[in-house]
């Protein structure tokens, strides 16, 4: 079972979280939840509380979001493994991409395990075409192309997870896990952007990539109106700094429109 992989790599941080979670549950009087947690392996407790606490496993809506995330993680995971295998990355940048690659592989394992233990069926890994039908020739022999795609995938990942957060509010543990992935994608994005000579943050809707094909990844990032009815955050700085200070979400459809050219079947 996939979840055993997660269990095997469980570290002290996760254990501490689960322990504190149990404390919180007990304090709030949700004894059924606390007992369920106490009697299951810790990784299951973290990722699949609902699967055990609610008959029937995770709600389909949450499974769907996790599978959506899994598909994006498949894409990133294969992209970095392919890049590392192809030798396109110069030696001085290898540690950065090795770190990122390890995280994406871990995300695939984590999401697969969560979906399975939540009663869902993990999406199968698509076949990818990282040239996007020839739009990005030679992603694994031309380093600038590889870097640019990496930046685009990471910035997309940040926006994608952000856009799905509200769909996970029914399950605190899965929401928190998604947020913990989300900020790691942002760390990746910042590092890759800086490696490319960009700022770690996004100014306006500028991609910093010489291809109009990536523009949908950045459209909307220029937003400076936060909250509803809205406060123009440019008043607290400049339009540029205000756009940098808030990353913007993308809907599932917007993300799929970005990812689909890289998916063959």
């Amino acid at each position, binding site marked *: 079972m996939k979840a055993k992989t997660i269990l095997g790599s469980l570290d002290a941080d996760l254990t501490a979280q689960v322990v504190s979670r149990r404390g919180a549950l007990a304090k709030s009087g949700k004894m059924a939840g606390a007992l369920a947690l106490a009697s299951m392996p810790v990784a299951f407790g973290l990722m699949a509380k609902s699967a055990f606490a609610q008959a029937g496993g995770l709600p389909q809506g949450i499974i769907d979001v996790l599978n959506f995330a899994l598909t994006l993680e498949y894409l990133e995971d294969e992209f970095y493994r392919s890049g590392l295998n192809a030798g396109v990355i110069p030696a001085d940048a290898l540690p950065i991409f090795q*770190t990122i690659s390890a995280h994406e592989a871990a995300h695939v394992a984590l999401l697969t395990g969560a979906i399975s233990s939540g009663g869902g069926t993990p999406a199968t890994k698509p076949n990818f075409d990282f040239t996007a039908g020839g739009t990005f020739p030679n992603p694994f022999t031309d380093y600038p192309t590889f870097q640019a795609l990496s930046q685009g995938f990471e910035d997309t990942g940040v926006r994608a997870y952000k856009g799905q957060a509200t769909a996970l509010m029914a399950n605190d543990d899965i929401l928190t896990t998604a947020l913990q992935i989300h900020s790691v994608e942002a760390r990746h994005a910042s590092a890759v952007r800086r490696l490319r000579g960009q700022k770690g943050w996004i100014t306006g809707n500028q991609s910093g990539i010489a291809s109009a094909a990536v523009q949908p990844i950045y459209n909307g990032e220029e937003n400076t109106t936060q909250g509803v009815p809205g*406060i123009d955050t440019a008043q607290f700085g400049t339009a540029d700094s205000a756009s940098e200070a808030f990353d913007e979400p993308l809907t599932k459809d917007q993300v799929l429109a970005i990812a689909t050219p890289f998916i063959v079947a």
Partner: protein
Amino acid sequence: MELNFLDGLARSTSRRNFLQWSGITIAVAAVGCSDNNTGPSPATTVDLGSGDTGILNYAYALEQLEAAFYTQVVASFYAGASAGEQTILTDIKSHEVIHRDFLKAALGSAAIADLAVDFTSITFTDRSSVLGAAKAFEDLGVSAYNGAGKLLTNPDYLVLAGKIVSVEARHAAAIRDLLQANSFAGSDVVNANGLDQAKAPSEVLTAADVYITTTVTANNLPTT
């Protein structure tokens, strides 16, 4: 599904048990000079409140701390700060000031008073001291927002927190790489499952306490 931001805020404010605020003295007497933030004078004691408002005030407290720190960093850079480092720190200062001022505006009358800060443990003339503190603030901010997401009930606020936390993570990565190459997502903050840290408000406030003179109480924040 989009709830009115300010309406939601007003609701959670009016829901707040008035008794929770009794016995809490929000000092109106200035205890020292603050930054150029126009608003209430620095307080000796503040309570963050309850519900979503409490969580937003918690975020506002952390952003006040970060904004005050970077304002001081940028006012007089440490010796040998490169042009690239100055640009990064100036950008981050702008972002944190915007986060702070935005949250204050969004919270309106529910906003906590200005916090009095204490940065005497930081040597602002020393690169490693400044960047070490910046790293601590950014990583702490990331873990705080990650841990607070589940405590929010209004989806608009969750998205808002998400918009801020990824920028804090971008900051953290940049600062960390200034200190040590390839530490942007080091194993001290990202575990073997590829997960960043998520901390409860109590843990975060304990870590932040050394930098805050004001007594911040958070006894009424949601815990689940």
